């Protein structure tokens, strides 16, 4: 009887373990939905696999980095020095995925000697950035790896976090999409294999700006009736963000010697991760510009000083180099509307101006230190 019970319960569990192994080996990558978070990472991996040259420098970061930096000009500048600088920034990517990619590059691209980590002060607010980032990290894991501190995200009360310990869970959304749209998926996979290739030495540019909108506050922006697709997008972003307006709190009185436990954890983990990167050159951390929607309405007051509480000691001990451009586009306390296309992202003009300012620093600090 015992054998019977063990067989009937044990064999299904064994089958699950085998499948978990298959998914941990990233067997599912070829079937990942083109618009999924996992697919963003897969495209970066595919682009790197197709690039025969040695990669010397990389740019890592979120969608702010995707649209905030002119990756073609950075690559061209590196090429002038006989170096190859690849753009690996991915929408949705934050600290966990940045650290996981750096860890993965050690074996996948051992020639990488340094690079840019382009995030913003908002990324230093909390330890994590939502369960969706688990899917971005998955393709950079191996059968047994725990890159980016993935397993630390596991919370048994939150099924969305089970992807932190199980690859089967991480591809949940892909599989649901496969069942919902089996026919469309075939075409999408073909598209993924060709058109959706990640550009290592360029990036997208957005021409639109927000000057036609009442841009000063999230409330005024949200109330606007858009008249074209660009405005519709920008207003929708305002509306999505409006629910969090005024809830940032006040961090101006933080005592570094007696921090609340959650902030102490953020400080410890970020400093530990940045000190442990292990590149030949210290990473160049760039705090990208944020709009006043973030600095005034969404983020805690004092967040910028908090970011420096984390990063300045690392600068002092030589673990990182730091460029803080958080208020680069602010004039008289307000963000310029002509350089952003929504509350997060710069347009082509903003990208150009920021890159103009950054290129000499990048050249001095990375290519000709």
């Amino acid at each position, binding site marked *: 009887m015992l054998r019977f019970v063990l067989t*009937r319960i044990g*064999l299904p569990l064994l089958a699950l373990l085998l499948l978990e192994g298959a998914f941990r080996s990233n067997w599912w990558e070829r079937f990942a939905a083109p618009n999924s978070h996992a697919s963003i990472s897969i495209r970066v991996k595919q682009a790197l696999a197709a690039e025969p040259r040695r990669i010397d420098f990389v740019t890592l970061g979120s969608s702010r980095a995707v649209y905030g930096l002119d990756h073609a000009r950075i690559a061209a500048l590196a090429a002038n020095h006989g170096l190859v600088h690849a753009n690996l920034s991915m929408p949705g990517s934050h600290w966990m995925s940045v650290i996981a990619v750096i860890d993965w590059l050690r074996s996948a691209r051992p020639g990488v000697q340094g690079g840019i980590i382009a995030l913003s002060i908002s990324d230093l607010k909390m330890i994590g950035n939502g369960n969706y980032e688990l899917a971005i990290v998955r393709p950079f894991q191996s059968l047994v790896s725990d890159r980016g501190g993935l397993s630390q995200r596991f919370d048994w009360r939150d099924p969305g976090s089970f992807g932190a310990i199980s690859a089967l869970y991480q591809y*949940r959304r892909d599989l649901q999409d496969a069942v919902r749209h089996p026919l469309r998926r075939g075409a999408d996979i073909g598209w993924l294999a060709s058109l959706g290739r990640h550009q290592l030495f360029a990036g997208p540019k957005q021409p639109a700006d927000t000057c036609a909108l009442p841009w000063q506050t999230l409330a005024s922006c949200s109330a606007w009736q858009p008249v074209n697709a660009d405005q519709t997008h920008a207003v929708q972003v305002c509306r999505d963000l409006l629910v969090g307006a005024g809830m940032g709190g006040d961090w101006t009185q933080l005592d570094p010697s007696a921090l609340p436990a959650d902030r102490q954890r953020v400080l410890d983990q970020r400093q530990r991760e940045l000190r442990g990167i292990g590149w030949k050159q210290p990473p160049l951390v760039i705090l990208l510009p944020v709009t006043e929607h973030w600095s005034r309405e969404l983020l805690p007051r004092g967040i910028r000083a908090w970011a420096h509480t984390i990063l300045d000691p690392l600068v002092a001990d030589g673990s990182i180099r730091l460029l803080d451009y958080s208020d680069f586009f602010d004039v008289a306390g307000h963000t310029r509307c002509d350089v952003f296309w929504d509350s997060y992202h710069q347009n082509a003009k903003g990208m150009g101006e920021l890159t103009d300012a950054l290129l000499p620093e990048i050249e001095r600090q990375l290519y000709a230190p």
Partner: protein
Amino acid sequence: MNFNSWQFVVFFLVVFALSAPLKRHSTAHKWWLLAASYVFYGSWNWHYLGLIVFSTVFDYWIGRRFRDSQRPRRLIALSVIANLGVLAFFKYANFAIASANWSLAAFGSSVQFHAIDVLLPVGISFYTFQSMSYTIDVYRGDLKARDSLLDYALFVAFFPQLVAGPIVRAVEFFRELDQPRHFTQKQIAYALILIAFGYVKKMVFADSLAAAADPVWNQLATADPWAVLLAVYAFAFQIYFDFSGYTDIAIGVAMLFGFQFPKNFNYPYLATSFQEFWRRWHMTLSRWLRDYLYIALGGNRRGPGLTYVNLMLTMLLGGLWHGASWNFVIWGALHGSYLVGERLLLNRIPGWQSDWLPMRLLRWFVTFNLICFAWIFFRADDFASSLLVLSKLGTLATATYDAQAWSALSIALLAFASAHWLGGRFDIKQKLGAAAMPVHVAATTVALLMLIWFTPDYSAPFIYFQF
């Protein structure tokens, strides 16, 4: 401790593992199951353990007193009044107060009663009915009063069916209890399939439907009419998968402890008449209402007129049993009128009960859609929301159907309806339970994968836990 929680999985594994060595020691095994049941119930709110213990001891005492009582009618009246009194206090007192306040205000009175600050004990409707059935059976002479308080306490509190059924009759439970606790391989295989199916029904099907439909139910004022129509059908399947999923788990878990419980669902949406629906839906409640209410009222023994009255009264009270709200009364009244209307009108139409396929399909169509119509009152938060749903459905003819937005839910509903039909047609659970080892293992593996891959992030509580 919900069935779909990690706490329950761990609790069950511990109880099951330690129950196996106790099987040969009947009394120790009963004590163990009773202790586990009280822990299960106490994990929700240990204060209310006293209530279930009171209900147990009181009805056990009444049962014993029947033996030498000269006035058994007084005893049974005492039992019914005590049980219904407890139920009335905890479940219906605030409903009565709110209704009284509304009536007073309607007549211009400024007198208002204060609501009672009391929490509804989980499962009270189920274990009260179960306990009452024991005293009624003993009173009727259908069952000998139980000597052992331990046995009786386990009957009332046995954790797999404590909070949401199936409502087991005392005679059935004690028959199982008096048999040696043994398991056959066939039973275990079937129990595992039931549990796996139960979890998939609840966590994949019911919760996915809830994730799609709940936003519509919560925003009725702004929802478009076609979305409301789909939400009504979605709820019909959600409540079936939710409740029958719970029941499958309950029956499967009980089976692993050596208890065979009666079926509670038999593919109810395949019914082609309302009478058949109630023979397929929540079968143990239907049976309880028939045996202890409908027949007690006289059933169909006093002519057609009183039969209809009895049917109506039974369904009204059945509706009210579900919850303290006028919406449940309306739901019960609708089903009562369906049953009466079926006997009075439909069955008199020539050819209506024909076995000709188009007629069977027509009967199914009428039955299914009227049942879904009644679900509107069951699901809506209040009467005003029910009216809002009806007003939205009234504008369907002029509303535009957003095919892109609602095609996924429409397809899902068709898929669920097909699965329901296939399950009923081929009795898949039974077949898989008796299947060869590779098929059984494959089925269990597929069920586990479905739980991992297709469980939505949104998890709704078991609907019948609130009753």
